[in-house]
């Protein structure tokens, strides 16, 4: 199973998460988003970029409530809320946005 990006083959798992995190690129994000039936616009990118920065700094993908709280702080309350997030990523910001951002699959712990 793999994504095709600019002639390169990027392997992913059963659920579409890439296997090698360093394979990620903006072009790949667009391809993953397409398979998720998401048309990436500026708002989507805001969240994806936020997630990548969070991961870069703390080495974890934030829990959804932490993501929403942090977005609220940096982008304002009209974006830092559940409704807005689920409008952008209907199948869940943790799952879909992390997948597009090329972060590890959440272990689904709770």
């Amino acid at each position, binding site marked *: 199973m793999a994504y095709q990006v600019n002639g390169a083959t990027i392997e992913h798992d059963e659920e579409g998460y890439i296997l090698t995190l360093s394979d990620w690129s903006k072009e790949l994000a667009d391809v993953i988003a397409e398979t998720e039936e998401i048309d990436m616009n500026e708002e989507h990118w805001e969240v994806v970029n936020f997630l990548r920065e969070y991961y870069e700094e703390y080495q974890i993908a934030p829990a959804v*409530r*932490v993501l929403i709280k*942090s977005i609220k702080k940096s982008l304002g309350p009209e974006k830092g809320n559940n409704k807005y997030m689920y409008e952008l990523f209907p199948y869940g910001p943790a799952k879909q946005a992390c997948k597009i951002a090329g972060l590890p699959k959440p272990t689904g712990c709770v």
Partner: protein
Amino acid sequence: MENDAKRFLYVNRKAPYGTIYALESLEVVLIGAAFEQNVSLAFLDDGVFQLTKGQDTQGIGVKNFSPTYRALGDYDVNKLYVEKESLEERGLSVDDLQEITYEDEDDDWEEKPSINIVSRSEMADIMANQDVVLSF
């Protein structure tokens, strides 16, 4: 904090990387944070090595999870107790630890330190004053 919240203490007495306990302890803390209990973390004995700054794992090919401690504030985990005697016995001081902070909701989101250095007898008091102790 809800009134029926229990006091949970995570006791960390092991160094990172040699074994997985430190990492998997941190994973419990991050997941457990969703339950809105009254959470504290204790670092004593070799557990104090978990919080040292300057960890670089590139040479051993293992993920460096020390930056993740700095995310604890986002998870509303902001009581990290580090035992002074344990630091001293290992030739460490608070300056050898990374800075970990949280934003205090009750004080106009002021940034405050999460790490509290406590004496052994204060640590004993903290341990005794819990509902649940999880040891790693």
